[in-house]
């Protein structure tokens, strides 16, 4: 049932994406990534890299989806999706809201009857990119950070030292 629901949602997402091609500037993104997530039942952390896709729409709107892989506490991963607003121009700081799905290796704390916690865990988050710069060929963002709150008093912290984006259809804004 869970798989069927998931498949339906993804098909709907793909169909929607197909309709969303107009007036966008698409880019591919690569980034250094660090993650820390801790709740009463799960702790996941590491440092690593990620890649994904972003788009900007007209002057103010933007979105980004990426996948990240982390080391040091086993191989944790995160899938992130966020939409937000940015300042138009070369210096284009941004703020985004969305969610992160954190999975892979983790430390679990088991209480009660011994049931293991649900995992991967979905964490709503807010991200800030104060040092984000862009031109018609792409963008660079330094010290991009994010924070979120998850189930069981979960707290999420993310930091990307540097994120680089290359425009796929340069010139469009």
């Amino acid at each position, binding site marked *: 049932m869970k798989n069927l629901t998931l498949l339906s949602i993804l098909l709907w997402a793909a169909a929607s994406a197909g309709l*969303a091609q107009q007036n966008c500037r698409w880019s591919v993104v690569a980034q250094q990534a660090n993650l820390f997530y801790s709740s009463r039942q799960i702790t996941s952390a590491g440092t690593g890299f990620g890649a994904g896709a972003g788009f900007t729409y007209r002057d103010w709107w933007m979105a980004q989806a990426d996948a990240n892989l982390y080391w040091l*506490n086993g191989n944790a991963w995160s899938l992130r999706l966020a939409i937000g607003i940015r300042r138009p121009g070369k210096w284009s700081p941004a703020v985004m809201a969305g969610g992160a799905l954190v999975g892979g290796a983790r430390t679990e704390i088991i209480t009660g*009857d011994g049931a293991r916690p*649900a995992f991967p865990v979905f964490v709503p988050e807010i991200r800030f990119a104060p040092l984000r710069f862009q031109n018609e060929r792409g963008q660079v963002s330094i010290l991009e950070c994010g924070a979120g709150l998850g189930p069981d008093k979960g707290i999420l912290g993310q930091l990307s030292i540097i994120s680089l984006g290359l425009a796929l259809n340069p010139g469009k804004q």
Partner: protein
Amino acid sequence: MARINCILSLLAAMVVLSCGKEATPEIRNLEKALLVADAVEADSIMPHVFALSALHLADTPVNNEGFAPKDLFPSDHLTRDRATGYVAQGFASMGYEADTIILGDELPAFNVVAEKRGVLFPDEYVLVACHHDAFYGAADDNSSGVAALLEIARAVKTFQFARTIRFVSFDLEEFGSIGSTRYYNAGYDRGVKAAVIMDAIGYASSEPESQKRANGLQLPTTGDYLMAIGNQTNAERVQEAVFLGNKAGLAKTVGIIAPGDGTYFFATLFTRSDHGLLWYKGIPALFFTDGANLRNPNYHKPGDLPETLNQPFLIQNVRLIAAMTAILAEIQ
């Protein structure tokens, strides 16, 4: 609108993926295992702790002069000789054939071993172990573990198990698990299907904030529970220990499942005893502890004396570990 649909759909997919807890697997032979827990005698445990503590205080510290890592592991107040004899004598008095295996030329380790032979798979071993070298009065670390070892050995005596239970009291754990490392590397890890390691299991506090946290773990902050620590290899065993503790009512227990095989950089905290090398070797091992220095203010200090232990807590913990031993050894 299409873009919003797309993004919301993907967020919904993330939420769906994150749903669903994993229940505890059904425990085979639960009723019989609880009989072993019942066989643990409350009055037998603390006398071991008092006796061992007195022996440590009267003993001569280990002479590690000439041993290369001595600067890393100063041996002031670390004793083991009299405790070694006490464990061997304890096994012998119960009718076990106790064997003291001496390993290493430089700073030899004296590991004491006894076995309860399995009736179906005698060449498959469940290792039940602790360490008997200790600092100062050594009540919590680790006379509590040694007392548990001896009492479990006594409690299982009249039961039959499919696998052989091998009781081992390791030496020189405090110098970096030297005794157990030599033991495993000498080939005694062959046939070990599961292991239970006990290190500091007798200190509890009902004071809020008495349990320190480490590595970002949000452990319950009142230090009144036993920790059962495993890795992903034996995650189900951790679940079983927590079930035995909390649902079967043997002892308040919190399980910790380390990531992967438990040997990652951020997880090294969980490898801090004689089970560490077993994890590196891929052998499933459960580690029982009260958290040692993360809870006990007397850790490795002169104040680690029997009076500071929580006796009911220690007794409950021994019962839980005895039941877990019975499950791992497949009680008949």
